[in-house]
């Protein structure tokens, strides 16, 4: 079986902190393009909780490219994005509950029966002051 190298994904955000209802701007690039046997490339802007409780997530933006419908071939790489952020939830660093915001790229690739996956996150803060 030919081993395909793990895709190298990089996400760059315009800044580390964004105001509620602001515009998240950034770019993600898959070095050398998506793998030839890519199953899907997913880009999402989301919040997730961490801490003592079971993880909750919420997705503010979701976009997927797949080879089956021809969208993967037309996916721009590098992919510049701007996403309007919601007003809440704000980033929060509590004792039992923490809320993180992140931009995530998930690439699934590999032959049938040997699906592989690479996930790359870029964290940012959603704060009213616009500071981390």
């Amino acid at each position: 079986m030919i081993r395909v190298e793990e895709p190298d994904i990089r996400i760059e955000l315009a800044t580390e902190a964004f105001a509620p209802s602001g515009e998240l701007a950034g770019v993600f690039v898959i070095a050398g393009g998506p793998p030839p046997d890519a199953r899907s490339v997913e880009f999402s802007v989301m919040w997730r909780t961490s801490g003592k409780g079971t993880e909750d997530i919420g997705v503010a933006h979701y976009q997927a490219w797949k080879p089956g419908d021809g969208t993967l071939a037309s996916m721009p790489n590098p992919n510049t994005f701007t996403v309007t952020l919601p007003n809440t939830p704000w980033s929060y660093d509590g004792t039992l509950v923490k809320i993180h915001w992140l931009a995530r790229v998930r690439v699934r690739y590999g032959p049938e029966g040997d699906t592989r996956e690479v996930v790359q996150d870029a964290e940012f803060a959603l704060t009213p002051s616009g500071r981390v």
Partner: protein
Amino acid sequence: MTDEPLDPPPAAAPWPGSASCGLFVFGFVVTALIGMGLAFWAAVTGNVVLVPVGFFAPILVYGIGSAIVFGPRIVRHMREASRNAPSPESVAAVAHGEGVELGTKVAAPWEDVAEVNPTVHDAGTTPGKVLAYRLAQVGMTPGCRFGCAVAVAIFWNAILSSFVIDAFNKWNRAGQIPWLDMLFLTPFVLVGLLMIGTAFFFGVRWFVSTLTGQVAVEVSAHPMLPGDVVRIHIAQTGTFRLVRVAVLLVCTEEATYIAGTSKSTAKKEVAKHPLVDPGANPDGDGLPLTTDSTIPTGLMHSFDAPNNKIKWVLRVTARVMGFSFSNDYGVTVNPR
């Protein structure tokens, strides 16, 4: 943006197959029969020690052999299934009801003005008599707490009493103290006494609440916004007057997690902001009380997710006939 529906989730990797499962079960039955035969043979020939060996050895060998043959296939199947399952992000995006389109942007859920802050916990209010909003009391009522504490204390101590009586009977019969029994029972007796003390404490709280009657809290604005001035009105129906009335804005984090087979929720108070200080009130420190308070700036907004919550309450504390009084009323703190 098109209105095409989201693609159905990709099929999971093929399962090792029903034929393999059937083969496994058939092999297990045959092995079990062999084991039973060997055990029977050992018993008939008088080798009693070999009976359990004969019974379990074939099944053990079969289990190890099956794990070697099927184990990697099952692990590979599970891994493949998890990787072929829809990603958590796509599931969450679909659950938003906005539709997810391949290769195109999804409409932001908050563009629907109906849900501007979908994760902000709504405490719920009813129309007030003096001010616009009457807050709902949260938590168990003092009567419920007292009843629960009494029930638990009775249950524990009733069971414990049979052991304690038994120990005393032994003492009477033998004429000497059964030290081992006493040592074993001591921690359980201490827990029982603690439960009685807790029930007594909640009984006093319940008694105090009956003296004070219903304490109603109303506010001029709800949800509350950090930095805003909010008028607070507190009144009571009981005859025994609350004094030294203080109001605190209290933030509690709640995290629900799975421990074993059950769900547990951990709670922790993480912030307390005094809104009404009994010493600083020129109109006295009793009820009825109407005062303007500024909601502190920089507060985290209320947050409500299935397993993680950030809740705010107005806590009214006071004294009545020398006893302490405390009630919590749920509020929503909106983001500013």
